[in-house]
């Protein structure tokens, strides 16, 4: 992995279309501005991890469908 040191307001370019700017630095947090083409998805990584976790939990659910349907219709 490429690791670069950057100061506040300094940027990194990835290819021609993506720019990443450090906009604020505090003790335990950096704020990052991202300019990217609209067709590119930009997400916090933990969000995708969360979707994965939700899906895994959903798939594992050992639900008794008949009992559930009955309970809902009550």
């Amino acid at each position: 992995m490429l690791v670069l040191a950057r100061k506040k307001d300094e940027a990194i370019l990835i290819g021609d279309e993506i720019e990443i700017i450090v906009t604020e630095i505090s003790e335990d947090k950096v704020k990052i501005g991202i300019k990217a083409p609209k067709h590119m998805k930009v997400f916090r990584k933990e969000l995708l991890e969360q979707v994965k976790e939700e899906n895994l939990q959903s798939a594992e659910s050992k639900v008794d469908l008949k009992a559930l349907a009955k309970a809902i219709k009550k």
Partner: protein
Amino acid sequence: MTIKTKFFDEIEIDEKQIINFVDGIPGFPEHKQYVIINDEELGFTFMQSVDEWSLCFITLPPATLVGDYSFELSDETVEKLELEKPEDVATFAILNIPEDFKKMTANLRAPIVINTKNNKGIQELLDGDNYSMKHQVFKEDV
């Protein structure tokens, strides 16, 4: 063709019904083909993996959970699904049903989006914080 399912034993499906998830869905990248099974008696829609019988998601249309569910699809998704118009989209929220089913939640933040014209599907992760990944299906007093 006949497929084995998690909840309905063996069922007969038409290959044209198969929904292709080019990227799979997060957590299950290796399974790319599902069929949608509507069970009116149970009131749920099932998303059953074609190649893995034990993999089946229980879903509901988000509109049945929140009144005014709406979102904007990313350009990437529109391209990937080859979507031409919004009316071609079918949307499902995956349910997470714990043993105490009253605590059931729906993932409204990452809906299953299907182009009904070509049966291509994706699990879209929505921008913004409008919808929760753990939307409570029942109000507490059920």
